């Protein structure tokens, strides 16, 4: 046993396994019947609908625009391309509290975008579920772009030209030749963005009014339960989120393996 090997396991045990074990043991101690009751109270169910539903909406919106942005970065030449490329990483570099502050201000009723949206469409964004969705869009945008970019770069233009020569329209080329090859990367990016948006707290909590049944997300509910010293509820809802994280990790790994196999030997007929 080498030193590095021992340090690795000791560190993982102290920093990861011990806290994970505490959550699992506390959740197990609640008992299955009460676990189910606490996990499915109307309040908790409402936060799942908001967190998991709005995160899905945000991930899908970014699924579409992420492909457009990746396409622009890889296939198009235009002034400001490098700036656009750097801006994509900003949601990771900007601390979430700062992002939340800025988004809440911009979309408030007298903000740069909030005021026109209210005047023209009567839409309120900050402190409603729309604001929560916007924060989730912000936080999950880079994933699809960064997942699709390398695949698009590796894609050979030959195939598209061949499809063209054989008489395919540009739409047919896009739908039948290009998109199917990008699909694993798009889905992996969407899944990563979705998982991140579901767990996001910092930016969402600042743009949400945090009212139960309206725009309260699951992570905020966990914090509220802790503040009320309702440790059992916090534990159970935290366990639900942890199980979701493990599931999404498996799905993302599966999608990435699928994508690698797809590249190695593309299915017939594509």
């Amino acid at each position, binding site marked *: 046993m080498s030193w590095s090997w021992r340090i690795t396991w000791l560190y993982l045990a102290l*920093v990861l396994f011990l806290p994970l074990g505490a959550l699992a043991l506390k959740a197990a101690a609640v008992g299955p019947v009460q676990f189910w009751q606490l996990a499915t109270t109307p309040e908790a169910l409402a936060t799942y609908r908001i967190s998991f539903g709005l995160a899905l909406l945000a991930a899908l919106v970014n699924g579409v625009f992420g492909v457009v942005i990746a396409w622009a970065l890889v296939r198009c030449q235009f002034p400001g391309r490098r700036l656009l490329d750097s801006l994509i*990483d900003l*949601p990771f570099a900007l*601390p979430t509290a700062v992002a939340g502050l800025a988004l809440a201000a911009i979309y408030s009723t007298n903000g740069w975008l909030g005021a026109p949206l209210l005047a023209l469409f009567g839409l309120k964004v900050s402190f409603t579920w729309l604001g929560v969705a916007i924060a989730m869009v912000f936080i999950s945008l880079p994933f699809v772009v960064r997942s699709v970019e390398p695949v698009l770069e590796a894609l050979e233009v030959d195939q598209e030209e061949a499809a063209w020569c054989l008489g395919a329209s*540009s739409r047919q080329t896009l739908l039948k030749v290009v998109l199917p090859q990008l699909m694993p990367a798009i889905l992996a990016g969407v899944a990563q963005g979705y998982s991140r948006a579901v*767990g996001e*707290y910092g930016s969402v909590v600042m743009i949400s009014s945090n009212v139960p049944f309206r725009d309260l997300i699951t*992570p905020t509910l966990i*914090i509220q339960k802790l503040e009320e010293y309702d440790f059992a509820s916090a534990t159970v809802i*935290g366990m639900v989120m942890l199980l979701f994280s493990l599931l999404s990790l498996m799905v993302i790994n599966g999608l990435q393996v699928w994508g690698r196999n797809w590249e190695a030997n593309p299915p017939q007929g594509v």
Partner: protein
Amino acid sequence: MRSWLRSMQRILPRPSAAHLIPLIACLYVGVIILLPALEVVAGAFAKGLAPFLENFQSEELRSAVLLTLRCTLIAVPANTIFGLAAATAIARRQFPGKALLLSVIDLPFSISPVVVGLMLVLLYSPTNGLLGGIVSSLGWQIIFSWPGMALATIIVTFPFMAREVIPLLEEEGWDQEEAARTLGASDWQVFWKVTLPSVRWAVLYGLILTTARALGEFGAVAVVSGNIAGQTQTLPLFVEDAYKQYDTELAYGAALVLAGVGLVSLLLKLFVEQMLGGLREGEPMG
């Protein structure tokens, strides 16, 4: 007017997909990402430079900066040691469960920061924690205090270093180390003189990502801190608190400091990416 339009049409190329795609991309990123970034700067200097600088006389802001630095200075070296140890232990060995172990190391990226904080509370809280009794009898305070916050920062940031260094070591192979060892170098000498220099850019890259995330971490730290102004408030928590107290200028002042740190980390990251020769280009930071 007509003739002007017609001449413009002749000069400008007809709008096509080739123009539309960059345009849509720039508009979308402009609204979703660039506007919020500009808002931070505009908000911080809304009343000019002097009020912005005055913010830094706030005792609470200064203590928040110090606490943020303390958590970061604990988390970054600890995670660097772990990352290097894990990389040298895992990268060049083939063993059953290797893929699983790599996924386990990546786990903190998938877990909500709030759940990370919750796990620490359930482990160390003096009243409800699994080890609460032991911690109290030793006279330690972990939850609602800086050790818990430093620990939370460690958990959310430890995968960065390992995940940057492992792929590079896997590519490089063992030859140079074996040569050094045949020439009589000890394990320690091999690590310092051969292994570490060969991955120095990846280590620097990992350091930047770890530091940026550690300085800005919010959710995990918020749960364990108790958010006591002047005592257990980091800079990101300070931003939220000041904003909620309608102390907008103070919130923007602190936010601009954090945004500046984020921007510097982004620029450093671009620089190191060039140094890595585009090897890891385009990989998301999170």
